[in-house]
């Protein structure tokens, strides 16, 4: 009997959380499209997400591109197909590694910061203060972050794509001894718009996930500094896992011919 009650309690708690999360997401989305729009706040978040993440994302991208070139060169040597290195690099970077790596790095950087900031505001009653000043926290805190995430992640990924491919090119041309012109030619040769576009769409979805998880966990944090720390961890972990799962689903959607 007690076992049954315990199972029931866990199940009810799960339902409650799911409901809470769904309502949070829908409310957040509705405030993204309804006026008034706080341009100033969106701008600030865009700078925070887009501009200040550039070093992290750039570094990740360049080393990813470099190591890809190296690995595929040594790996493909077994099949004597080293000519495919440039193609492998550009396709992996634009389709998968660009968006996923950038998504994970930004989740660590921005998702955590959002959860910590909103969480601190929640536990110090700043969110309550917002409400009493006739300002909707969804409009003021959540919507700008989600809009900025949606818009800025594709930009970041575009930069990551270019830097990643460049990293592969540097290794290919100057370390592995490929002819630079041939390398560049084979980079372009098999690249289709869908490769880049799918990556950017993924990026946008990841940006949404990062902002949503950051805001959600921050908004529902309680219990002082410890609760905020917990919320921060949850934001990063849940965003990362969601990024990896939706990445699989989106890939299946784009390339399931």
């Amino acid at each position, binding site marked *: 009997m007690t076992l049954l009650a315990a199972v029931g309690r866990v199940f009810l708690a799960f339902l409650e959380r799911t409901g809470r999360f769904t309502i949070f997401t829908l409310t957040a989305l509705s405030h993204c499209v309804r006026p008034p729009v706080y341009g100033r706040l969106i701008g600030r978040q865009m700078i925070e997400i887009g501009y200040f993440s550039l070093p992290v994302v750039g570094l990740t991208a360049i080393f990813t591109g470099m190591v890809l070139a190296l690995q595929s060169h040594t790996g493909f040597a077994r099949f004597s197909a080293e000519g495919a290195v440039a193609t492998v690099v550009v396709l992996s970077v634009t389709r998968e590694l660009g968006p996923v790596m950038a998504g994970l790095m930004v989740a660590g950087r921005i998702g955590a910061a959002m959860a910590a900031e909103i969480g601190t*505001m929640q536990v*110090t*009653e700043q969110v*309550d*203060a917002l*409400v*009493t*000043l006739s300002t*909707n926290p969804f409009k003021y805190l959540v919507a700008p972050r989600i809009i900025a995430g949606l818009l800025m992640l594709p930009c970041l990924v575009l930069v990551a794509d270019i830097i990643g491919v460049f990293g592969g090119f540097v290794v290919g041309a100057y370390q592995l001894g490929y002819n630079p012109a041939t390398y560049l030619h084979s980079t372009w040769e098999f690249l289709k718009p869908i490769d880049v576009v799918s990556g950017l769409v993924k990026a946008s979805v990841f940006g949404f996930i990062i902002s949503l998880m950051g805001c959600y966990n921050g908004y529902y944090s309680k219990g002082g500094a410890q609760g905020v720390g917990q919320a921060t961890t949850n934001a990063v972990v849940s965003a990362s896992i969601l990024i990896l799962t939706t990445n699989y689903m989106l890939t299946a959607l784009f390339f399931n011919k």
Partner: protein
Amino acid sequence: MTAHPKIQLVDVHKSFGPKRVLDGVTLDIAAGESFVVIGGSGTGKSVMLKCILGLMRPDQGSILVDGEETVGLGARARERILGKFGMLFQGAALFDSLTVWENVAFGLIQGRRMDRRKAREAAMERLFQVGLGADIANLSPAELSGGMQKRVALARAIASQPEIIFFDEPTTGLDPIMADVINDLIVKCVKEVGATAVSITHDMHSARKIGDRLAMLYHGKLIWVGRTADIDRSGNDYVDQFIHGRAEGPIKMELRR
């Protein structure tokens, strides 16, 4: 005379888990009156204010503002009602991402859509009223002392000249002279602007100075409500013990021995 009391609480209950905080609070507060709530630490004074503001939902009972039921209002109607209120939070709850003057002007800029330059002027005026100079206007709240933060929060609460102002321990943490300046300011808000004020305080000097009427909260109920002038003749042992700050009396502090 208006037909309705400004604020009316009818049999309001609020519990946190097994812990009963408000246990049937019934109260009328007239328009233009300065009402003071006293009571021991942790008796639910702040919770009572938050229930009226709709930041917490009472488990039972009804709360009317200008004769309008506010329990269970939707977000938009709540926003309209909150436009009448100003709230000074016990912990100040200043927005630490904004400067001091932006905090004070927040309700004017976000709520009333006032021009930033005009709002800044109004904010400076308010800061001056709480004894703070222009030199701190561009600091961030974290750079202020606790008492200064409290005064900034007070300036923010009254900046948009709300009809109803809640002060949660306005003079706690201030020196006696500054506390008296704040008392005068609260009296002025009520007498000159015609606002309805509800203040929570532990400071009996301040309570006598600002309050027209006074209520004492004890074990979730209002055990005494009456004119502040009559407080010394309340005939209530609990009130007597509280206002004289005696350790001996009917109120037993729950100390472990």
